[in-house]
Structure formats: C-alpha cells, structure tokens
C-alpha cells in the first residue's frame, strides 16, 4: 500500500501544470473561475491549443494521435485542468466516439474521422436518448431502413447536448424490430447538414439552451456510415457508456468547487464575521470535504485496477453516485453561501460582451444557475437510480 504518486507521475503533474500556466489563455481561465458561459469558439480555441501539444485526446493510443495515458495519468491531467479553471474537453468526439471507432470502426472510418476530431473539423453530439427512451435506452425507436447504399432515418432524438454547435451526430437507430430490443440497434454516424434534420433548442432551468431535440425526416445516410455490424450497435453503445463513466467521479471538479466555496465563505459576512467562521456552515463544508477526501481515494483505487486505456467496470457506478452527490452538495452550499445574492437571475451577465456591473459580488452571479444546472449530474450518463441497480446486480449479485 502506497498512497503517493510515483516520481514519474509527479513529473507528469508538473509538466501539465507548467503547460497550463504557459498556454491556458487567461480570458478562458477567468471565464471558468467566474462561471461565465463558454462559446463554441472558446471551446475550439482551447481544443486547438491542447491538440498542438498532443493532449486533446491523451487517452487515445499513440497510433491515433493520443498519448496512451494510463487511468492515473488521465486523472492527474483532469485534476490539473480543473485546478487551473481550464474549459473541460468537450467529450462527445474525444472521450465517447473516438474509443468506439478505434475499437469497432472500419479502417476508412478511423482514417477519416479520428483526425477530424483532433483538428476540430467535426463537432460531434450524442444521439442516444429519445422522448420514449431515457433510462430504457434499448427501446430506441428512431428507425433506419436500408435503401440501396443508404439508410433512410426517421424519428427523434432529444436532450442532445450542444447539438446546436454540432455538424455530426452519432446515433443509436433501430434496424430490426424483431427479437430482443437490444438486438435490433445499430450505431450510425450522421452528417447534421443532411436534408431532413431539424434541431430545436430546449431551455434548461438555468436559462441556457444547452440541449436540443433533433428530428429526422427521411434523412438519407450513406451505408458506409454504419459503425461495425448492423444490429450490433448495443454492444458499441455500452462500450461507449463505460468510457463516458471514466472520470465520472469528477474529483477535480469537486476539489476546485470546494476551494471556490471556501473562498466565498471567507469573503461573505455573517453577523460581522466571515461566514466560514459560522460553526454550522463550517460543519457542512467540513463534512463534504471529508467525503471528498475518501472519494478521491476510492476513485484512485478503481482507476488503478483498470488497466491502461481500459474503462473501469461496474465500480464506476459507485464513483458516479458518490461523485455527483459530493459535487451537488458543494453547489448547494455555494448557493447558500452567497445569501440573498443567490436570487438575482441575469443570465446575460454570464455571456460574452456583457459589461454591466455585477449584481452583488462577482462570485455570486453564477451560483444559483450552477446549482440548478448540475442537477443534471445525477440524471444523465445513466441516472443514479440506474447506477444503484447496476451495483445491486453486478456487484452485490442481488
């Protein structure tokens, strides 16, 4: 048992930290610190900087332009990224589709799509959920019917994150309605500019159009865009979901959020004293920090079990539950910390180009929006209820 990182890992951390100090634009870090909204251009700018260093997809094998990072290296990288308030890497191409194509894609697909993910030509979005297929993902209905060397796609996806920025969507589509629902699903890559696709934004409770509905009306998709075999899409989808769940613990986010919370609680005044000196508030902070310290180690235990490049198994469900509970508690405490200034709701103030004075202290403006937005953490990526079912079946054998 040794709780320290190896010298090589510590060196890696230093390297990442130095890189971020040198290359992360202050403008983007400030947006992160103040909870301002990132534009599409902001994301693209940051991806390009990371890609230049070869770190946009450090988790990918070297042959595809990655670094072949171990789970621990990835963890260190993410911890340093959140510590520096860098924009998070948009996951859809890099963290989700990339590994699927590398494992199940054709040589042509790999050669064509992987470089485009790295150089920013394609912005992918994830077309899994449908109005009728959320937790029960295998019940997707969007159909793809073979017609010569095309599929004709009809149906609807929903909750598509940042679909308004995307030019490509990877979809689970139904290619067979007989037998078990899992056995009739295929994994299809679709160009969003194809005629017949409509995107409608959905405004979330923080006022932001973060997700979308995507409608497909007789959309013709080249059959060459099928990943792997027809009707085997469920296997690829599940493979992707386990990758989605790496870093699901969000330890870095939680640590950065906790530091931010403490800095607010030092500045806020409660009866003429810093709020952090209020014993009941301090107790709440202490409690969540204690949980986080243990969870950081749970996270490393799970990560170090997973071999390099491999996604962890059912244990990632534990990380998802505990990690999201901790982050949501930190967000709730941050909302409470800013007191009456949690009430003003001026979403323009979080946008580029807003140059009004902040209402109250600048750290107060995003507190409520962030609290509400992060209720999503326990809903998406397999809800926490579904994770509990996985734990009780796969780990406990109940």
């Amino acid at each position: 048992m040794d709780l320290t990182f190896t010298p090589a890992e510590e060196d890696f951390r230093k390297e990442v930290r130095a890189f971020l100090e040198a290359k992360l634009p202050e403008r983007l870090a400030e947006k992160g610190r103040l909870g301002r909204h990132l534009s599409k251009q902001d994301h693209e700018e940051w991806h390009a900087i990371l890609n230049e260093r070869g770190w946009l997809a450090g988790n990918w094998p070297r042959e595809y332009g990655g670094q072949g990072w171990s789970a621990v290296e990835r963890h260190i990288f993410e911890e340093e990224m959140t510590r520096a308030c860098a924009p998070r890497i948009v996951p859809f191409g890099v963290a989700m589709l990339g590994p699927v194509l590398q494992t199940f894609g054709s040589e042509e697909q790999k050669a064509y799509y992987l470089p485009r993910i790295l150089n920013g030509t394609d912005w992918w979005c994830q077309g899994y959920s449908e109005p009728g297929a959320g937790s029960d993902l295998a019940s997707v209905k969007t159909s793809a019917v073979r017609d010569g060397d095309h599929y004709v796609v009809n149906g609807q996806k929903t909750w598509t994150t940042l679909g308004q920025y995307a030019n490509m969507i990877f979809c689970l589509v139904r290619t067979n309605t007989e037998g078990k629902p899992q056995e009739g699903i295929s994994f299809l890559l679709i160009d969003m500019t194809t005629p017949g696709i409509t995107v409608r934004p959905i405004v979330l409770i923080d006022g932001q159009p973060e997700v979308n509905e995507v409608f497909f009306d007789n959309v013709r998709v080249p059959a060459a865009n099928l990943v792997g075999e027809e009707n085997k899409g469920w296997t690829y989808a599940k493979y992707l979901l386990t990758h989605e769940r790496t870093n699901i613990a969000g330890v870095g986010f939680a640590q950065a959020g906790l530091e931010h919370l403490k800095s607010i609680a030092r500045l806020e005044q409660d009866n003429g004293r810093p709020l952090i000196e209020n014993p009941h508030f301090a107790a709440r902070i202490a409690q969540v920090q204690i949980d986080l310290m243990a969870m950081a180690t749970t996270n490393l235990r799970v990560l170090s079990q997973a071999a390099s490049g491999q996604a962890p198994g059912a244990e990632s469900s534990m990380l998802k539950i505990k990690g999201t509970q901790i982050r949501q508690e930190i967000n709730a405490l941050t909302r409470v910390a800013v007191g009456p200034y949690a009430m003003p709701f001026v979403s323009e103030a979080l946008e580029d180009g807003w140059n009004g004075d902040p209402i109250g202290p600048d750290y107060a403006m995003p507190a409520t929006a962030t609290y509400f937005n992060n209720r999503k953490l326990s809903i998406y990526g397999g809800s926490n209820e579904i994770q509990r079912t996985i734990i009780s079946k796969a780990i406990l054998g109940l």
Partner: protein
Amino acid sequence: MNFELTQERRMMQDALRRYLANTITTATREAAEASPTGFSDRIWEGLAELGVIGALFTEDQGGYGGSGFDLATVFEEIGRAGAVEPLLDTGVLAGGLLGALGGDAAAQTLEAVIAGTHQLALAHTEPANRYALDRVSLTAEKTAGGYCLEGRKSVVVNASAAHDLLVTARTSGQVSDSAGISVFRVAADAPGLEIRDYPLSGGGRGAELTLTRVEVADAALLGVEGEAHAALVHAHARATLAICAEALGLMDRIRVLTTDYLQTRKQFGKPIGKFQALQHRMADVLVEIEQARSAVINLAGNLDGPSALRDLHVAATKNLISRVGKLVAEESIQLHGGIGMTMEYDLGHLAKRLTMVDHRFGDGIHHLDRFIRLAVA
C-alpha cells in the same frame, strides 16, 4: 384541538384556488416575467377584487383578517399556483410594517394597497448584512424639518413596481445595535434614489438601491425614531410565515405533479411509479411535506402570541422548510429525469421558486443558529 379552517377561510381558500387555477398559465407567467414589474397587473387586480389583499390586514388597518391562519391560507394557495405577484412584499412585509408603525397617516395608503392600486417594498437588506434584522448601516441624519438618507440596500424585492419604499436606516448607535433603527417612507421617484432592477430566479423582480443624500420630511419617519426594531422583527415573523406557507403550497403542487408523472411516464414497459425504489422516495417526500404542514400550523398558531414563543417558531419553521424544500425540489427534478431540468414544463418554475425561499428572511443555517440561541443553549 381543531385543525379545520373556519368557514370564511375555507371560502377564501376555495375562491382563491379556483381563481388562480383558471387564470395562471405558462403563457401568463411568461408574460408577467417579461413585464417591467415582473408580475401581471390583471392578476393583481383580480386578487384585490377577491379580497385577498384585505385578508392580510387587520380590521384596524382597514382589512378583515391579518391573523396567522389568514396568511397561511392565502399563501398556501399562492404557492400552489406558482403565482409571482408581490402579495408578500406589498401586502405582508411592507404593508404590515406600514400598518404597525404608520398610525392614522398611513390609513389612506393602506386603503389603496388593499384596493390593489398601490405597491410597496421594504428595503432592509444591505450588501454585507445577509439576513440580520439588527444590522443597518444606511444612515439617516436629522436635518431641519426632516432627515437625509445615505447608503445602499440590496435585493429589494418588488422595488421596480413600488410607489413607496420603506427604508430601514440607522438614526443612532453602531451597525449591529437593535436600538437606533428607524423606518422611513421614501417615494420611488425621490431625488437621489437610484434603483437598479433585475429579474429574480423563480419570478418577480428585485433591485439594488443607492441612496445619495435623499431628503425626506419629518412625516416620512414611521413610528418613533430609533425604535423600529421590534416592529421589524414582527413584520419579518409574519413574512416568514407567509413564505413558509407559500413553500408548502409549492411543495404540495410539486408532489401532485411528480406523482402524476410517475404514473404516466413509462420505461422498461411499465410506469416508473411501479419501481419500488421510486415509490419509497416519494413516500419520504410525502412524510416530509406533512412535517412542513405541521410546522406552518405551529407558526401560524403562535404568530400573534408572546414574542419569545413566536420567534422560536419562526426559527423552527423556517429551518424545517429550508430542509424539506431542498429535498422536495431536488427529488422532484431527479424523479422526472431530463424533463425536470427544462423550463418547458411547470416543475422548473415551481422548483426554482421553492429553492429561492431559502434566500429570504434567513436560510436554514441562519434559523438553526437562532433556534439554538432561543431554545437549546
């Protein structure tokens, strides 16, 4: 023991519930939010016509109610409907304070308030003073024939609509003394008063106020100079009851909405309400909402009793509502899944409004501290 509402209150409850259910839609709420005042003039008039504003005032003040159970009855319905009209600010908080301190001179204004033609706001909160009632740094200096006010107020709810603002000011003593606090009535268009207004999460509007040498006449002082603290505490006790009852109505509506959703939303071939994991979660929500109902009854029943007992129940009820409100808002969003995260469905508005209850008149921790001082320490 009798937990039934009186005949009059039951009639008020029915009429108000029916009126709001028939009037408030997503479209009216969105229109209200887009309006300069943050609420609907038409619904405000409707509330006045129904006698709802009058029910918040005592007979002495020109109303026909004003007791704890009157407030609880009205505000539970306001909450159930997710209404954003400023009944709390104009009616209970500022109106109640004006009624308590204003004497005969306030009669005409109160009449206009009850008729629905006059709006008020209480400007007490200050940038660094959080939820404290005894901390006031805005100053009022005596001048010949009046006072000169100087300072800032923050998150003043309903300031954008108010014709008059009741401003707490320090006329003597230190920032944290409960003695030396006075209340002044300041017209919204008074020279030197700058109002920077903005929308609030969950509906309504608030504002930052900057008072730069605002001159008011002696008659603007409400009550006795330097002795407003007790009235301020009393007005906040009434407002706390009102907002807790509103929270209760919000929770009850959210519970119904969520239960309906569990019965209709199907996944894995059956309504998700058939999953025991979710049944138990909703059962806990129901148990906690019943606790909230009892806490509101406790406060309503003690509102006009001895102040020590009243304050104990203010602290207890607001602390409990803080905890239960968070549970109900978070669980309802979670059990809805993605749809619970959108503004396209009523739950979003209701859950936001419920969450914001924690940010007025003291949050759960503030009232835990108070409760310990009053009952435990």
